[in-house]
Protein backbone atom coordinates (compact mmCIF):
# COMPACT_ATOMS: atom_id res chain seq x y z
CA UNK A 1 0.00 0.00 0.00
CA UNK A 2 0.99 3.64 -0.53
CA UNK A 3 2.00 4.74 2.95
CA UNK A 4 2.37 8.54 3.01
CA UNK A 5 5.70 10.00 3.97
CA UNK A 6 5.86 12.96 6.35
CA UNK A 7 5.82 15.53 3.59
CA UNK A 8 2.81 13.90 2.00
CA UNK A 9 1.08 13.88 5.37
CA UNK A 10 1.83 17.59 5.75
CA UNK A 11 0.47 18.28 2.28
CA UNK A 12 -2.68 16.32 3.12
CA UNK A 13 -3.30 18.37 6.27
CA UNK A 14 -2.57 21.60 4.42
CA UNK A 15 -5.20 20.72 1.82
CA UNK A 16 -7.90 20.86 4.52
CA UNK A 17 -7.01 24.33 5.77
CA UNK A 18 -9.32 26.89 4.21
CA UNK A 19 -8.55 30.43 3.21
CA UNK A 20 -8.73 32.87 6.10
CA UNK A 21 -8.13 30.25 8.77
CA UNK A 22 -6.17 31.19 11.88
CA UNK A 23 -3.89 28.27 12.47
CA UNK A 24 -1.37 27.18 15.05
CA UNK A 25 1.09 24.51 13.98
CA UNK A 26 2.63 22.61 16.88
CA UNK A 27 6.35 22.02 17.08
CA UNK A 28 7.84 19.02 15.29
CA UNK A 29 5.99 17.33 12.47
CA UNK A 30 3.09 19.84 12.22
CA UNK A 31 5.58 22.61 11.41
CA UNK A 32 5.98 20.99 7.98
CA UNK A 33 2.36 21.86 7.13
CA UNK A 34 3.45 25.46 6.54
CA UNK A 35 5.44 24.34 3.51
CA UNK A 36 2.36 22.97 1.79
CA UNK A 37 -0.27 25.62 2.38
CA UNK A 38 -1.68 26.50 -1.04
CA UNK A 39 -0.11 29.76 -2.22
CA UNK A 40 -3.43 31.10 -3.42
CA UNK A 41 -5.01 30.91 0.04
CA UNK A 42 -4.37 33.57 2.66
CA UNK A 43 -3.92 31.63 5.88
CA UNK A 44 -2.80 33.16 9.17
CA UNK A 45 -0.20 31.29 11.17
CA UNK A 46 -0.04 32.07 14.87
CA UNK A 47 2.91 31.31 17.08
CA UNK A 48 2.32 30.98 20.81
CA UNK A 49 5.22 33.29 21.64
CA UNK A 50 3.34 36.30 20.37
CA UNK A 51 3.21 36.42 16.62
CA UNK A 52 0.39 36.39 14.08
CA UNK A 53 1.10 36.28 10.37
CA UNK A 54 4.21 34.16 10.65
CA UNK A 55 6.17 33.85 7.45
CA UNK A 56 8.77 31.33 6.27
CA UNK A 57 12.29 30.94 7.63
CA UNK A 58 14.63 33.79 6.71
CA UNK A 59 17.49 33.30 4.29
CA UNK A 60 20.59 31.89 5.99
CA UNK A 61 22.53 34.70 7.63
CA UNK A 62 19.43 36.86 7.95
CA UNK A 63 18.12 35.31 11.14
CA UNK A 64 16.85 37.72 13.79
CA UNK A 65 16.90 35.90 17.11
CA UNK A 66 14.22 38.16 18.47
CA UNK A 67 11.89 36.89 15.75
CA UNK A 68 11.39 33.21 16.46
CA UNK A 69 8.61 30.66 16.57
CA UNK A 70 7.46 28.34 19.36
CA UNK A 71 10.14 25.86 18.33
CA UNK A 72 12.70 28.65 18.82
CA UNK A 73 13.59 28.68 15.13
CA UNK A 74 14.13 31.96 13.28
CA UNK A 75 11.08 32.99 11.26
CA UNK A 76 9.80 36.08 9.47
CA UNK A 77 6.70 38.24 9.74
CA UNK A 78 4.38 38.65 6.79
CA UNK A 79 3.27 42.11 5.77
CA UNK A 80 0.18 42.67 7.92
CA UNK A 81 1.38 40.45 10.75
CA UNK A 82 1.77 41.71 14.30
CA UNK A 83 3.20 41.06 17.76
CA UNK A 84 1.50 40.70 21.15
CA UNK A 85 2.24 39.43 24.64
CA UNK A 86 1.86 35.93 26.02
CA UNK A 87 -1.48 36.45 27.74
CA UNK A 88 -3.08 37.74 24.56
CA UNK A 89 -1.45 34.91 22.63
CA UNK A 90 -2.96 32.22 24.83
CA UNK A 91 -6.27 34.07 24.94
CA UNK A 92 -6.34 33.52 21.18
CA UNK A 93 -6.11 29.79 21.80
CA UNK A 94 -8.08 29.28 24.97
CA UNK A 95 -11.14 31.18 23.77
CA UNK A 96 -11.34 29.51 20.38
CA UNK A 97 -10.12 32.40 18.27
CA UNK A 98 -7.71 29.99 16.59
CA UNK A 99 -9.64 27.96 14.02
CA UNK A 100 -7.30 25.02 13.66
CA UNK A 101 -4.48 23.70 15.73
CA UNK A 102 -2.32 20.91 14.34
CA UNK A 103 -0.45 18.79 16.88
CA UNK A 104 1.70 15.73 17.03
CA UNK A 105 0.72 12.91 19.38
CA UNK A 106 1.89 9.83 21.22
CA UNK A 107 -1.69 8.56 21.32
CA UNK A 108 -5.19 9.70 20.42
CA UNK A 109 -8.28 7.91 21.65
CA UNK A 110 -11.31 7.22 19.50
CA UNK A 111 -13.19 9.77 21.62
CA UNK A 112 -10.61 12.47 20.92
CA UNK A 113 -8.51 12.33 24.08
CA UNK A 114 -4.96 13.41 23.35
CA UNK A 115 -1.67 12.29 24.88
CA UNK A 116 1.30 14.16 23.49
CA UNK A 117 3.26 15.75 26.31
CA UNK A 118 4.70 13.10 28.58
CA UNK A 119 5.63 9.46 28.20
CA UNK A 120 5.02 8.91 31.89
CA UNK A 121 8.25 6.93 32.14
CA UNK A 122 9.77 6.99 35.60
CA UNK A 123 12.58 9.52 35.75
CA UNK A 124 11.41 11.40 32.68
CA UNK A 125 11.43 15.12 33.26
CA UNK A 126 7.97 16.41 32.43
CA UNK A 127 7.61 19.42 30.13
CA UNK A 128 4.29 20.62 28.80
CA UNK A 129 4.82 24.00 27.15
CA UNK A 130 1.71 25.15 25.35
CA UNK A 131 0.48 21.64 24.48
CA UNK A 132 -2.48 21.57 26.86
CA UNK A 133 -3.65 25.05 25.87
CA UNK A 134 -3.35 24.28 22.18
CA UNK A 135 -5.14 20.96 22.54
CA UNK A 136 -8.29 22.27 24.16
CA UNK A 137 -8.47 25.83 22.90
CA UNK A 138 -8.77 25.84 19.14
CA UNK A 139 -12.11 25.46 17.37
CA UNK A 140 -10.72 22.28 15.81
CA UNK A 141 -7.70 20.29 16.88
CA UNK A 142 -6.09 18.12 14.24
CA UNK A 143 -3.53 15.49 15.09
CA UNK A 144 -0.84 14.45 12.65
CA UNK A 145 1.12 11.29 13.37
CA UNK A 146 2.23 7.95 12.00
CA UNK A 147 -0.54 5.50 12.76
CA UNK A 148 1.77 2.87 14.25
CA UNK A 149 4.69 3.04 16.61
CA UNK A 150 7.99 1.54 15.54
CA UNK A 151 6.89 -1.55 17.42
CA UNK A 152 3.76 -1.71 15.29
CA UNK A 153 1.31 -0.65 17.99
CA UNK A 154 -1.57 1.61 17.03
CA UNK A 155 -1.36 5.18 18.30
CA UNK A 156 -5.11 5.47 17.69
CA UNK A 157 -6.40 3.71 20.81
CA UNK A 158 -9.58 3.00 22.71
CA UNK A 159 -8.20 4.81 25.73
CA UNK A 160 -4.86 6.56 26.10
CA UNK A 161 -2.34 4.87 28.37
CA UNK A 162 0.07 7.82 28.35
CA UNK A 163 -0.71 10.84 30.55
CA UNK A 164 -3.38 12.99 28.92
CA UNK A 165 -2.91 16.40 27.37
CA UNK A 166 -6.62 17.05 27.03
CA UNK A 167 -9.95 15.25 27.11
CA UNK A 168 -12.09 14.86 23.99
CA UNK A 169 -10.28 17.68 22.26
CA UNK A 170 -9.16 16.13 18.96
CA UNK A 171 -11.58 16.15 16.06
CA UNK A 172 -9.47 14.71 13.25
CA UNK A 173 -6.39 12.50 12.98
CA UNK A 174 -4.16 12.50 9.90
CA UNK A 175 -1.86 9.52 9.62
CA UNK A 176 0.35 7.89 7.04
CA UNK A 177 -2.33 5.27 6.38
CA UNK A 178 -5.68 6.91 6.89
CA UNK A 179 -7.57 9.97 8.05
CA UNK A 180 -10.01 9.59 10.93
CA UNK A 181 -12.67 11.67 12.57
CA UNK A 182 -12.77 11.08 16.32
CA UNK A 183 -15.08 12.28 19.05
CA UNK A 184 -18.03 11.38 21.21
CA UNK A 185 -19.35 9.04 18.49
CA UNK A 186 -16.03 7.18 18.28
CA UNK A 187 -13.69 6.96 15.32
CA UNK A 188 -14.69 6.89 11.69
CA UNK A 189 -12.46 6.54 8.68
CA UNK A 190 -12.58 9.47 6.26
CA UNK A 191 -10.11 8.13 3.76
CA UNK A 192 -7.40 5.51 3.38
CA UNK A 193 -4.29 5.19 1.24
CA UNK A 194 -4.57 3.18 -1.93
CA UNK A 195 -4.33 -0.53 -1.39
CA UNK A 196 -5.50 -0.52 2.21
CA UNK A 197 -8.83 -2.09 3.19
CA UNK A 198 -11.04 -1.23 6.13
CA UNK A 199 -10.52 -4.75 7.45
CA UNK A 200 -6.74 -4.33 7.39
CA UNK A 201 -7.10 -0.95 9.06
CA UNK A 202 -9.32 -2.47 11.78
CA UNK A 203 -6.70 -5.13 12.37
CA UNK A 204 -3.86 -2.60 12.52
CA UNK A 205 -5.61 -0.32 14.96
CA UNK A 206 -7.59 -2.83 16.98
CA UNK A 207 -10.26 -0.19 17.66
CA UNK A 208 -13.87 0.00 16.48
CA UNK A 209 -13.99 2.01 13.28
CA UNK A 210 -16.97 3.33 11.41
CA UNK A 211 -16.53 4.06 7.77
CA UNK A 212 -17.75 7.45 6.62
CA UNK A 213 -19.85 7.11 3.52
Amino acid at each position, binding site marked *: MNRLNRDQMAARVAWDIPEGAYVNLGIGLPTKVANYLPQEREIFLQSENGL*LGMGPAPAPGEEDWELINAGKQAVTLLTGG*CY*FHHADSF*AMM*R*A*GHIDICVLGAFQVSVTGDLANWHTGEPGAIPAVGGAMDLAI*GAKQTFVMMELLTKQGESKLVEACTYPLTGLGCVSRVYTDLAVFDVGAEGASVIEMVDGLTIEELRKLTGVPLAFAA
Partner: protein
Amino acid sequence: MIDKKVASAGAAVADIFDGASVMIGGFGTAGMPDELIDALIARGVGDLTIINNNAGNGESGVAALIREGRVRKIVCSFPRQPDSHHFDAAYRGGKIELELVPQGNLAARIQAAGAGLGAIFTPTGYGTLLAEGKETREIDGKHHVLEYPIHADFALIKAQRADRWGNLVYRKTARNFGPIMAMAAKTTIAQVADIVPLGSIDPEAVVTPGIFVQRVVKIAPALAAAA
Protein backbone atom coordinates in the same frame (compact mmCIF):
# COMPACT_ATOMS: atom_id res chain seq x y z
CA MET B 1 -7.51 37.07 -0.55
CA ILE B 2 -8.94 37.96 2.79
CA ASP B 3 -10.56 41.35 2.88
CA LYS B 4 -12.62 42.21 5.94
CA LYS B 5 -13.79 45.52 4.49
CA VAL B 6 -17.52 45.93 4.25
CA ALA B 7 -19.06 48.59 2.05
CA SER B 8 -21.45 50.21 4.50
CA ALA B 9 -22.53 50.26 8.09
CA GLY B 10 -25.80 48.68 7.02
CA ALA B 11 -24.05 45.77 5.36
CA ALA B 12 -21.79 45.38 8.39
CA VAL B 13 -24.69 44.79 10.79
CA ALA B 14 -26.95 42.92 8.36
CA ASP B 15 -26.83 39.62 10.29
CA ILE B 16 -27.51 40.96 13.76
CA PHE B 17 -30.59 39.07 14.81
CA ASP B 18 -33.53 39.44 17.17
CA GLY B 19 -32.40 38.47 20.64
CA ALA B 20 -28.69 38.95 19.95
CA SER B 21 -26.25 40.12 22.61
CA VAL B 22 -24.35 43.14 21.36
CA MET B 23 -21.36 44.81 22.99
CA ILE B 24 -21.01 48.48 22.14
CA GLY B 25 -17.70 50.22 22.78
CA GLY B 26 -17.20 53.76 23.90
CA PHE B 27 -16.91 55.79 27.05
CA GLY B 28 -18.52 59.21 26.94
CA THR B 29 -17.94 60.85 23.58
CA ALA B 30 -14.87 58.73 22.88
CA GLY B 31 -15.05 55.55 20.86
CA MET B 32 -18.81 55.41 20.42
CA PRO B 33 -19.61 53.64 17.12
CA ASP B 34 -22.53 55.94 16.35
CA GLU B 35 -22.96 55.04 12.70
CA LEU B 36 -23.00 51.32 13.45
CA ILE B 37 -25.66 51.89 16.09
CA ASP B 38 -27.70 53.93 13.63
CA ALA B 39 -27.43 51.06 11.17
CA LEU B 40 -28.52 48.63 13.86
CA ILE B 41 -31.56 50.77 14.60
CA ALA B 42 -32.37 50.96 10.89
CA ARG B 43 -32.13 47.17 10.71
CA GLY B 44 -35.12 46.95 12.99
CA VAL B 45 -34.22 43.96 15.15
CA GLY B 46 -35.16 43.93 18.82
CA ASP B 47 -35.05 41.98 22.05
CA LEU B 48 -31.37 42.85 22.22
CA THR B 49 -29.03 42.53 25.17
CA ILE B 50 -26.69 45.51 25.09
CA ILE B 51 -23.37 45.63 26.91
CA ASN B 52 -21.98 49.15 27.20
CA ASN B 53 -20.49 51.23 29.99
CA ASN B 54 -23.55 53.49 30.05
CA ALA B 55 -27.20 53.30 29.09
CA GLY B 56 -27.21 56.00 26.48
CA ASN B 57 -27.79 59.70 26.73
CA GLY B 58 -29.55 62.30 24.65
CA GLU B 59 -31.30 61.10 21.52
CA SER B 60 -28.65 59.15 19.66
CA GLY B 61 -26.71 55.92 19.96
CA VAL B 62 -27.72 53.56 22.75
CA ALA B 63 -30.38 56.04 23.92
CA ALA B 64 -32.05 55.86 20.52
CA LEU B 65 -31.93 52.04 20.58
CA ILE B 66 -33.72 52.14 23.92
CA ARG B 67 -36.18 54.80 22.76
CA GLU B 68 -37.12 52.57 19.83
CA GLY B 69 -37.82 49.69 22.21
CA ARG B 70 -35.12 47.42 20.84
CA VAL B 71 -33.36 46.63 24.10
CA ARG B 72 -34.57 43.89 26.42
CA LYS B 73 -31.64 44.06 28.82
CA ILE B 74 -28.67 46.31 29.39
CA VAL B 75 -25.46 45.36 31.16
CA CYS B 76 -23.58 48.48 32.22
CA SER B 77 -21.84 50.28 35.06
CA PHE B 78 -23.35 53.73 34.92
CA PRO B 79 -26.87 54.07 33.53
CA ARG B 80 -27.74 57.29 35.35
CA GLN B 81 -26.69 60.40 33.47
CA PRO B 82 -28.23 63.86 33.32
CA ASP B 83 -29.74 63.19 29.89
CA SER B 84 -30.37 59.45 30.07
CA HIS B 85 -34.13 60.02 30.01
CA HIS B 86 -34.89 57.23 27.55
CA PHE B 87 -33.23 54.65 29.79
CA ASP B 88 -34.86 56.21 32.85
CA ALA B 89 -38.31 55.98 31.34
CA ALA B 90 -37.86 52.42 30.12
CA TYR B 91 -36.42 51.34 33.47
CA ARG B 92 -39.13 52.96 35.56
CA GLY B 93 -41.70 51.54 33.18
CA GLY B 94 -40.35 48.03 33.73
CA LYS B 95 -39.55 47.76 30.04
CA ILE B 96 -35.85 47.11 30.34
CA GLU B 97 -33.82 44.82 32.52
CA LEU B 98 -30.69 46.30 34.12
CA GLU B 99 -27.64 44.33 35.18
CA LEU B 100 -25.48 46.81 37.02
CA VAL B 101 -21.80 45.86 37.11
CA PRO B 102 -18.90 47.76 38.66
CA GLN B 103 -16.88 49.13 35.76
CA GLY B 104 -13.75 47.15 36.56
CA ASN B 105 -15.70 43.92 36.87
CA LEU B 106 -17.36 44.75 33.57
CA ALA B 107 -13.92 45.07 31.96
CA ALA B 108 -12.57 41.97 33.72
CA ARG B 109 -15.59 39.85 32.78
CA ILE B 110 -15.34 40.93 29.15
CA GLN B 111 -11.62 40.20 29.19
CA ALA B 112 -12.28 36.79 30.79
CA ALA B 113 -14.67 35.94 27.96
CA GLY B 114 -12.09 36.93 25.38
CA ALA B 115 -9.50 34.79 27.13
CA GLY B 116 -11.71 31.71 27.47
CA LEU B 117 -11.80 31.62 31.27
CA GLY B 118 -14.78 30.04 33.01
CA ALA B 119 -15.04 32.48 35.90
CA ILE B 120 -12.94 34.82 38.02
CA PHE B 121 -12.74 35.70 41.68
CA THR B 122 -12.60 39.49 41.95
CA PRO B 123 -12.36 41.58 45.12
CA THR B 124 -14.48 44.39 43.68
CA GLY B 125 -17.99 44.61 45.02
CA TYR B 126 -17.51 42.27 47.96
CA GLY B 127 -19.88 43.14 50.79
CA THR B 128 -22.02 45.39 48.62
CA LEU B 129 -25.50 45.19 47.12
CA LEU B 130 -23.95 44.27 43.77
CA ALA B 131 -22.54 41.04 45.19
CA GLU B 132 -25.76 39.94 46.88
CA GLY B 133 -26.51 36.31 46.24
CA LYS B 134 -23.15 35.73 44.60
CA GLU B 135 -20.63 33.13 45.65
CA THR B 136 -17.78 34.58 47.68
CA ARG B 137 -14.48 33.23 48.88
CA GLU B 138 -11.64 34.44 51.06
CA ILE B 139 -8.33 34.01 49.25
CA ASP B 140 -5.07 35.07 50.87
CA GLY B 141 -6.98 36.98 53.53
CA LYS B 142 -8.98 39.00 51.03
CA HIS B 143 -12.65 38.57 50.19
CA HIS B 144 -13.62 37.91 46.60
CA VAL B 145 -16.79 37.52 44.57
CA LEU B 146 -17.16 34.93 41.82
CA GLU B 147 -18.02 36.60 38.54
CA TYR B 148 -18.69 35.02 35.17
CA PRO B 149 -17.44 36.06 31.75
CA ILE B 150 -19.57 38.28 29.53
CA HIS B 151 -19.72 36.93 26.00
CA ALA B 152 -21.60 38.48 23.11
CA ASP B 153 -22.77 37.58 19.66
CA PHE B 154 -21.53 40.88 18.25
CA ALA B 155 -19.29 43.76 19.22
CA LEU B 156 -19.65 47.17 17.61
CA ILE B 157 -16.55 49.25 18.20
CA LYS B 158 -14.84 52.33 16.84
CA ALA B 159 -11.17 52.46 15.97
CA GLN B 160 -8.99 54.90 14.10
CA ARG B 161 -7.38 52.77 11.41
CA ALA B 162 -7.70 49.26 10.07
CA ASP B 163 -6.18 47.18 7.32
CA ARG B 164 -7.95 44.49 5.28
CA TRP B 165 -6.92 41.79 7.79
CA GLY B 166 -8.72 43.67 10.56
CA ASN B 167 -5.69 44.90 12.51
CA LEU B 168 -6.72 47.96 14.49
CA VAL B 169 -5.23 50.99 16.15
CA TYR B 170 -7.31 53.41 18.16
CA ARG B 171 -7.11 57.12 18.93
CA LYS B 172 -6.51 58.44 22.46
CA THR B 173 -9.17 57.53 25.00
CA ALA B 174 -11.44 56.20 22.25
CA ARG B 175 -9.57 52.94 22.82
CA ASN B 176 -11.40 52.16 26.12
CA PHE B 177 -13.51 48.98 25.75
CA GLY B 178 -12.70 48.35 22.07
CA PRO B 179 -9.81 45.89 22.41
CA ILE B 180 -11.46 43.69 25.04
CA MET B 181 -14.88 43.68 23.40
CA ALA B 182 -13.24 42.67 20.12
CA MET B 183 -11.84 39.63 21.93
CA ALA B 184 -15.10 38.70 23.65
CA ALA B 185 -17.61 38.73 20.79
CA LYS B 186 -18.21 36.06 18.19
CA THR B 187 -18.38 38.72 15.48
CA THR B 188 -16.60 42.02 15.90
CA ILE B 189 -17.44 44.91 13.64
CA ALA B 190 -15.19 47.96 13.72
CA GLN B 191 -16.00 51.31 12.24
CA VAL B 192 -12.82 53.19 11.45
CA ALA B 193 -11.84 56.58 10.13
CA ASP B 194 -9.47 55.03 7.64
CA ILE B 195 -8.59 51.73 6.01
CA VAL B 196 -4.95 51.55 5.04
CA PRO B 197 -2.94 49.07 2.96
CA LEU B 198 -1.58 45.98 4.67
CA GLY B 199 1.72 46.83 6.30
CA SER B 200 0.89 50.49 6.90
CA ILE B 201 0.26 49.82 10.57
CA ASP B 202 3.46 49.20 12.52
CA PRO B 203 3.33 45.54 13.65
CA GLU B 204 4.68 46.62 17.05
CA ALA B 205 1.84 49.12 17.48
CA VAL B 206 -1.17 47.03 16.47
CA VAL B 207 -3.53 47.17 19.43
CA THR B 208 -6.14 44.68 18.23
CA PRO B 209 -4.74 41.89 16.05
CA GLY B 210 -6.96 41.06 13.09
CA ILE B 211 -7.86 37.65 14.51
CA PHE B 212 -10.30 39.45 16.81
CA VAL B 213 -12.02 41.45 14.07
CA GLN B 214 -14.40 40.06 11.48
CA ARG B 215 -15.50 43.21 9.63
CA VAL B 216 -14.25 46.75 9.18
CA VAL B 217 -16.21 49.58 7.69
CA LYS B 218 -14.85 53.00 6.89
CA ILE B 219 -16.89 55.89 8.22
CA ALA B 220 -15.02 59.03 7.28
CA PRO B 221 -15.00 61.59 10.10
CA ALA B 222 -16.49 64.14 7.70
CA LEU B 223 -19.36 61.79 6.94
CA ALA B 224 -19.67 61.04 10.62
CA ALA B 225 -19.98 64.74 11.41
CA ALA B 226 -22.60 65.22 8.71
CA ALA B 227 -24.64 62.22 9.85
